[in-house]
């Protein structure tokens, strides 16, 4: 039995009168790579925005697997308390893990819980160095406060060294080491894509959301990206959920695919099943032919 990392439970979301997502359900198993496909405007990015707390769903809940810490947590006390009471029984069964309701959490809290993402249109910090881009993502793990920073004391220096070392290690893994001190805006597109993934990983996620990672890449780069994603999963022990238009990419890498159209889930299954599904062909591939 595999554990569920992320559970999306009957999520519906409206923008004004428009239903962007209707009754979306998902149980993402640990260590999997799942894909989300569908025509433009199907609501895919909205799903990512709902998971990461940018939007709060009109209806439904989102749960994320958490390791139980036996110490009392200080963050988001109230929200957690309410949840613990109602989920009390379920938690008893799983000893170390429980599903935490993250539906109404703020984006930065969700990041600290272990969900990181990249963006459809790159959103790196252009006027900062590559190193700073990474260090900012490590920021919420920094253990010094305003006082330590002002005094530049031993604690500050040790922590700073630690995160810098970690950042440089990460940059080396992504072959961005030579760019450490370059401004991010000067980097070529492919390196920016890698930097964005590295930045997401710097938050130490358990679940990585990739929004069209292969956008704008040629076939060779796309192939490299596929290899990289598989490698990331192994190296960082991650679960990955991605949105992509590139069919070969999705079919080649994802174990399970969900297909959306007009906010509804119209099909899901293995790449094989999905690509043979007549509704998918009609809604997605069919439309593409005329486009």
């Amino acid at each position, binding site marked *: 039995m595999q554990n569920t990392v992320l559970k999306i439970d009957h999520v519906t979301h409206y923008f004004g009168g428009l239903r962007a997502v209707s009754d979306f359900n998902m149980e993402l198993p640990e260590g999997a790579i799942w894909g989300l496909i569908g025509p433009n405007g199907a609501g895919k*990015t909205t799903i990512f*925005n709902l998971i990461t707390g*940018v*939007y709060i769903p009109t209806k439904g809940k989102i749960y994320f697997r958490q390791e139980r810490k036996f110490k009392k947590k200080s963050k988001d006390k109230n929200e957690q308390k309410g949840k613990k009471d109602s989920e009390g029984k379920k938690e008893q069964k799983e000893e170390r893990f429980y599903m935490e309701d993250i539906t109404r959490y703020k984006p930065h809290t969700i990041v600290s819980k272990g969900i990181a993402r990249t*963006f459809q249109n790159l959103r790196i910090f252009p006027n900062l160095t590559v190193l700073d881009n990474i260090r900012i993502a490590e920021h919420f793990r920094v253990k010094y406060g305003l006082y330590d920073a002002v005094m530049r004391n031993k604690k500050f220096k040790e922590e700073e060294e630690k995160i810098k070392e970690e950042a440089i290690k990460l940059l080396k893994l992504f072959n961005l080491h030579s760019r450490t001190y370059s401004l991010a805006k000067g980097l070529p597109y492919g390196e920016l894509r890698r930097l964005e993934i590295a930045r997401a990983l710097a938050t130490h996620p358990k679940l990585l959301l990739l929004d069209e990672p292969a956008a704008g890449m040629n076939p060779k780069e796309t192939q490299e990206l596929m290899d990289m994603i598989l490698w990331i999963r192994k190296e960082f022990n991650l679960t990955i959920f991605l949105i992509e238009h590139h069919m070969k990419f999705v079919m080649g890498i994802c174990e399970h695919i969900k297909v959306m159209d007009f906010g509804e889930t119209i099909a899901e299954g293995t790449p094989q099943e999905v690509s043979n599904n007549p509704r998918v062909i009609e809604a997605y591939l069919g439309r593409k032919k005329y486009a």
Partner: protein
Amino acid sequence: MGSIFNLQQIINGIQIGSIYALISIGYTLVYGIIQLINFAHGDFYMVGAYAAYFAVMFSAARKEHPNVLIVLLISMTAGAIVAFLSNRIAYRPLRYKPRLSALITAIGVSMFLEYTSSAIPAIGPSYRAFPQSALIPEHTYKIGHAILSNYQIVNMSVAVVLMVVLTYIVQYTRIGMAMRASAQDKDAARLMGIDIEYIIDFTFIIGGALAGAAGLLTGITYPRINPYMGIIPGLKAFIAAVLGGIGSVPGAMLGSYILGFSEVFGMAINSILGEGIAYAILILVLIFLPQGLLGKKTGEKV
């Protein structure tokens, strides 16, 4: 309390509200299209007041009786010209720079207008009496306990006529449609063949003209003018625009009248703290209703 909510206060409220409305429409139009808080907008109003002042003084010197409509036209033209020039010289080159640089530039333009006016010996930094009786002789009417002057009647009726004309332009003319389209989506409007820069020029001209008219109307009813007279009404008109929902013309009008009434009643209750009521409204609106009364909610695209 009965003495506070009387007819006189209502008249005063409408009158102040009308002036705020004329200024805040310009704020809201400009903000709607280029998302710029044009700090210099209050100074267009000051320019309008001075243009009227000089027009009246000029005719008085020639022993002629000035025509109100011509003076109104002169202040509107002056406001429009200054607005047009500040857009062309200062704001337009910054169109694709970060929004805050345009905001700082607006502060610079505002300072420039204020201090240049007070540095020019013909205008000077001190208060001047607006020769309103040379323009229209004063009449007062008694309605119950309230006193209504013909200045107030001119003030309110000119404001209403101008607002009706403006609403007509925005709602029913080709250029008005283009303005609304540009406010919705500049890029789409451009692709539809709308010359955005032309629309922005036009928006500044309209806003400047209305502010100029407000300058004349203020001169008639509160006959003291100086180069810094635009700062506070400008700020309050902006608050009115925010209250009504920035970007919305009916919102700006509604917000202005609400603000006008609150100020008049607030001052009647406590004259020192009443001065601060506009700011209190601003802070409450921003906390509880950032999109304003008639504005649309906007979310950032991720």
